């Protein structure tokens, strides 16, 4: 029997993927483990491998199609097998190979995606049909949560965005989709004013007719970067603190560590690893920096997940080291290496790149002295790291040469005030200048 190839759910937040390209032609012979398809999520590209050897029969999907996770996209079988058109409408239910797939997430997603299998009462079906409601999106409360009943559809309808008749008609007249508007009326109802406000909004600026040699579409990683950076720059109340740090001891420590552990660990810990460890330690001391802004509150976060901005061929990516404060240097460095490896190879799992609570970005290797990075929303701050340079400084009234570094902490003043942010940065400075203090603050390994 033919084996089905489907889009796996590779992370908690992953709900759909875009077909990036087919690596094998329809009808070609493939062997198990061979990459056959590349798909793209909003976070990263990843490959899908053949789960059997045989002949590949591709479904009616082409580059650019956006598909929900667990959609069956191809089958592998005998040369005479065909991709059953019925499969195109179906999606995969829970699969036995649970290595990367989280069983629970699949159970939810399969119910949500599989319209044909929703159990619903006739009245619920009638009401849903009248109102164009996708029953799969309705939370069932009948039959122990298995069966959608009429009141579930009503609850669903009542939670949908509302529009006044005048606003709806005006939107139709001017060719605007009112569902895209934010309602200012009672309970978020879209009113005539909301439609008019949208109409009055300035149209996107026309670019002048200069010669263009290449167009990089704002999609995938590029699109996400453009959107996130603009959102951050427009919404946060950014303040930057600069602090000069003497890294002489820190450099010495790193050199000695390198000499002592490189053979045993199989790699030498770098400045980035050490900085991640220092920042994670400092975040534990200053929990108000490990926070985010919700619409109605500042939320301090339970886990310290340090994001490390890295440059890849496809653009900026930020792999996240989870619970960085609880990992020892070796675990942290090894994990970071894996994350960077996957990200650079375009094989990052969506969860590799989400859930950060604080970001470090280092441009020191490019001789940058200091800079003011953009906060990675919804985080509260980002630490910019410049290059370590030997500089004459005054120590005990003598001019001596020390290894100096400029740190820039950009924080969102809506979340943190200047003095508390400065104290956090001072603590990082202290840990860099006197790295043995790390021992004093070391947390237990998990």
């Amino acid at each position, binding site marked *: 029997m033919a084996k089905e190839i489907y889009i796996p759910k590779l992370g908690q937040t992953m709900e759909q993927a875009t077909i990036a390209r087919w690596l094998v032609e329809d009808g070609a012979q493939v062997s198990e483990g061979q990459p056959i398809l590349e798909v793209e999520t909003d976070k990263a590209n990843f490959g899908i491998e053949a789960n059997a050897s045989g002949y590949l029969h591709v479904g009616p999907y082409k580059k650019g199609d956006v598909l929900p996770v667990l959609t069956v996209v191809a089958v592998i079988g005998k040369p005479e097998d065909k991709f059953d058109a019925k499969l195109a409408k179906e999606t995969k239910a829970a699969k036995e190979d649970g290595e990367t797939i989280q069983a629970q997430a699949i159970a939810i997603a399969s119910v949500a995606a599989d319209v044909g299998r929703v159990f619903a009462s006739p009245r619920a079906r009638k009401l849903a049909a009248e109102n164009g409601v996708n029953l799969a999106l309705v939370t069932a409360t009948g039959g122990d949560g298995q069966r959608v009943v009429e009141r579930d559809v009503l609850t669903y309808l009542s939670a949908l965005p509302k529009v*006044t008749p*005048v606003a709806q*008609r*005006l939107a139709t007249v001017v060719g605007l989709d009112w569902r895209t508007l934010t309602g200012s009326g009672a309970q978020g109802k879209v009113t005539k004013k909301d439609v008019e406000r949208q109409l009055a909004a300035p149209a996107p600026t026309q670019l002048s007719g200069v010669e263009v040699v290449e167009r990089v579409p704002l999609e995938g990683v590029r699109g996400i970067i453009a959107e996130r950076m603009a959102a951050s720059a427009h919404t946060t109340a950014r303040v930057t603190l600069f602090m000069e740090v003497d890294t002489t001891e820190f450099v010495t420590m790193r050199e000695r560590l390198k000499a002592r552990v490189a053979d045993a660990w199989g790699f030498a810990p770098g400045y980035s690893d050490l900085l991640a460890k220092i920042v994670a330690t400092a975040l534990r001391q200053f929990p108000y920096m490990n926070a985010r802004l919700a619409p109605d509150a500042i939320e301090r976060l339970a886990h310290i997940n340090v994001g490390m901005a890295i440059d890849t061929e496809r653009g900026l990516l930020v792999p996240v080291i989870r619970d960085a404060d609880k990992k020892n240097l070796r675990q942290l460095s090894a994990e970071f290496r894996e994350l960077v490896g996957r990200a650079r190879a375009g094989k990052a799992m969506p969860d590799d790149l989400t859930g950060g609570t604080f970001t470090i970005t280092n441009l020191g290797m490019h001789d940058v002295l200091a800079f003011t990075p953009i906060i990675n929303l919804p985080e509260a701050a980002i630490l910019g790291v410049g290059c370590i340079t030997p500089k004459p400084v005054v120590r005990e009234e003598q001019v001596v040469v020390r290894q100096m570094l400029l740190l820039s902490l950009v924080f969102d003043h809506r979340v943190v005030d200047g003095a508390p942010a400065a104290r956090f940065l001072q603590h990082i400075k202290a840990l860099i200048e006197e790295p043995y203090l790390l021992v004093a603050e070391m947390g237990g390994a998990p």
Partner: protein
Amino acid sequence: MSDHAFDVIVIGGGPGGYEAALRAAQFGMRVGLVEREFLGGVCLNIGCIPTKTLLRNAEIVELLHRGKEFGFSFENLRLDYEIAYTRSRQVSDRLVQGVQFLMQVGKIDVFQGVAKLRSATQVDVTFMPEATAVNGKKFDGTLDAKNIIIATGARSRSIPGVEIDGERIITYREAIHLRQVPQSIAIIGAGPIGMELGYVFRCYGSEVTLIEMMPNILPLEDEESSAEVAKAFDHLGIKLLTNARVEAVIRTGEGVQVRANGQIVNTEKALVAIGFLPNSENIGLENVGVRVERGAIVTDENMRTNVPNIFAIGDVTAKLMLAHVASAQGIVAAETIAGMQTIGLDYGAVPRCTFCHPQVASMGLTEKQAFAQGYQVKIDRFPFQANGKALGLGEPDGFVKVVSDARCGEILGVHMVGPDVTELLPEYVLARNQELTLHEIARSIHAHPTLSEVLAKVADRPTFSGGRT
């Protein structure tokens, strides 16, 4: 907190001030209210409420005169206006006591006196012993207030060169207290007050002349409404002079002489009802720099003045000088002070009522205004002539007219003349407020046989474009 420190001090106890005070008290704030004359303001004491009582009497009188039509007859019909007057006072007193009771329930400290701002957080109060209708505290001194709501109302405007003597040349203040109707009266200004009092006096036998400077009586209403009422008033025997600018009002031997546009009207009394001026003077606004334009206090849509903790509501803001506007603004101000979510008023959805017979009720733009503002105007009309209930009542005159935007169906204005139309208007206010179109009104079933059927009938007009959704 000291006895004289408040979260909110409200200056003025009219329908704006007492509603604001009550709402603020409901939010748990400590509220003081200073009133110099009477709780309930002009509205309850010498305005809306007593006139509505007198108008009920007048309507019955008019009906009695239609005995032949309905098949009853009587001899020696005597009309005692003094009893109508006494009834109007009883109704007024009852409501004023009701407000006093509400103030007690809300634990609002009522001060019987004149208020003046000393600073943005201090109000000087001078006790007014004669203002017994306030029934408030005897206090001379300074109150501290975190927030102040100014609700001082408005007063009658006079004609330049005309001296109101309160005896023969009077305003509504004296007119409401007349124990007998004058034999003849010239009413200057055919707005709601002039129309209502003119109707009352005429029903009780006065020779009434209405003098209006503008081309139509009820000049703020849609022209069709004005014309319909003019027809009815003419039938009642009220003389209407329009396009008539008053040049002089002179006391003569027995009465007064009004000269308007070359015409001379000799009457027993003259009533000046040409409009109102905001009471923005002598309350210390200059001490704190509250911005005033053309006599009216300037506010934002949450009724906040340029001084952040000072609010102004009602006639003193001169937005739409109506009691229910003042009350609604008072609630917005109180909610704003309490930090609650609030919604500013849509002045295009404010009901306007004139209670003469036939009644006039309207909201929003007139047909002319809608055209002038560039809308694609759609007009729908339906007459009470075709309504069974109206015919049964013997009230077949009048109509409902709806001005809407043909493009998106927005209801821009509604104009009604006829039986109890002031009670029919709210359906359209709600519709306008919730941005409903005529389609939704037409599809709401209206009971048969009621006057309200007209509201659905006027809305139920299939059109060639936009009728289907």
